[in-house]
C-alpha cells in the first residue's frame, strides 16, 4: 500500500446554469477586467488515499466521483492530479 495525494475537480456541466460563476463574472467585470469573457465556478477536493498503486488509486477516485463527489445531472468531474504522498503516516521513520 502507498499513500497518494489526489486532487479532484468538480465543475458545472457545460450548459448548466452556474449562478456562482455568473456572480463572480459580474464582480470581475465591475473591477475592470473586461477581458473576462466567462466564469465557471467549481470545487476542488483533495483526498489522501491509500491504494496498491496509481491505477488502483485512480479507479477508486473515479468510483468516489460517480457515487458521491459529483452529481451527474449537473456536474462533471476530473481527477486532476495524483502524486505519491511524501507525508509520513505517523510513527516510524
Amino acid at each position, binding site marked *: 500500500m502507498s499513500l497518494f495525494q489526489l486532487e479532484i475537480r468538480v465543475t*458545472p456541466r457545460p450548459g448548466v446554469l452556474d*449562478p456562482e460563476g455568473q*456572480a463572480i463574472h459580474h464582480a470581475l467585470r465591475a473591477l475592470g477586467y473586461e477581458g473576462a469573457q466567462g466564469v465557471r465556478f467549481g470545487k476542488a477536493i483533495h483526498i489522501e488515499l491509500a491504494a496498491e498503486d496509481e491505477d488502483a488509486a485512480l479507479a477508486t477516485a473515479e468510483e468516489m466521483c460517480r457515487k458521491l463527489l459529483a452529481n451527474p*445531472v449537473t456536474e462533471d468531474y476530473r481527477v486532476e492530479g495524483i502524486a505519491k504522498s511524501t507525508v509520513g503516516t505517523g510513527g516510524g521513520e
Partner: protein
Amino acid sequence: MKAAVVTFPGSNCDYDLYKAVQAVGGEPSFVWHRETDLGDADLVMLPGGFSYGDYLRAGAIARFSPVMDAVTEFARSGGPVLGICNGFQILCEAGLLPGALIRNRSLLFQSHDVRVRVERTDTLFTFDYQPGQVLRTPIAHAEGNFRADEDTIARLEGEGRVVFRYVDAQGRATPDANPNGSVENIAGIINETGNVLGMMPHPERAMEPLLGSTDGKGLFMSLFTRPAASLP
C-alpha cells in the same frame, strides 16, 4: 394512518411535519436516520432542513444514511414518500426523483411566501385540491433551482409529472413569480408511479391561520383522509 418522519442530523422541519400529520388525524413517529427499519409506516416523510450542513451538495450525504435503503425499498414497493425542501433534494440525490436542485439564480437564501399552482389533482398527494388552485406557502431555501436535461424536462411535462408550479397572484407562471430560477417554474414533481413526491415549498408550515396560510392542509388531507386501499 402511520407516518414515519425521518430525522437527519440538521433536519429542522421534522416537528412541523409531525404536527401537520397530527392536525389531520394521522399518527406520526420520528425515525432517526441511523435506523434501518421504518416499522409499520403507511407513509414516509423526509423533512426540510440542512442535513449534514448541506456539505458537498444539499442532500448528497443524507442520501447515504442507513435509513435511506429502507426508504428506497419502501418507495420501490409503491409506498407513498413525501420529500419537502431538503427532503426533495435528498430524493433527487437518491435517484428516487429525476433532476437536481442547484443554487438559486439570485444566490440568495429565499425565505418568504410564494404562490404555487396545483397542476395535478389526481395524485394521492393532491386530490383534496381543485384543479389549478393557487396555494400560498412559504419557501426557505438556497438550493431550490430545479434542473434536469431537456429530455427529462420534456418527459416530466409530457407525462404530467409537474405537480406544483410557481405562479403569480393571477396564477400565471411568469419569470417574476419564479423565486429560484427553476426550469419551467417547477416547484414540485412526482415519480413515474405516482407514489414519490418532492417539493420545495413548505405545506407543513401553512397549516394555521395564525401563520398566514392554511393552504398546505389540503396536501395532508389528501394523504390521510383516504383509505390506503383506494389510493390511485
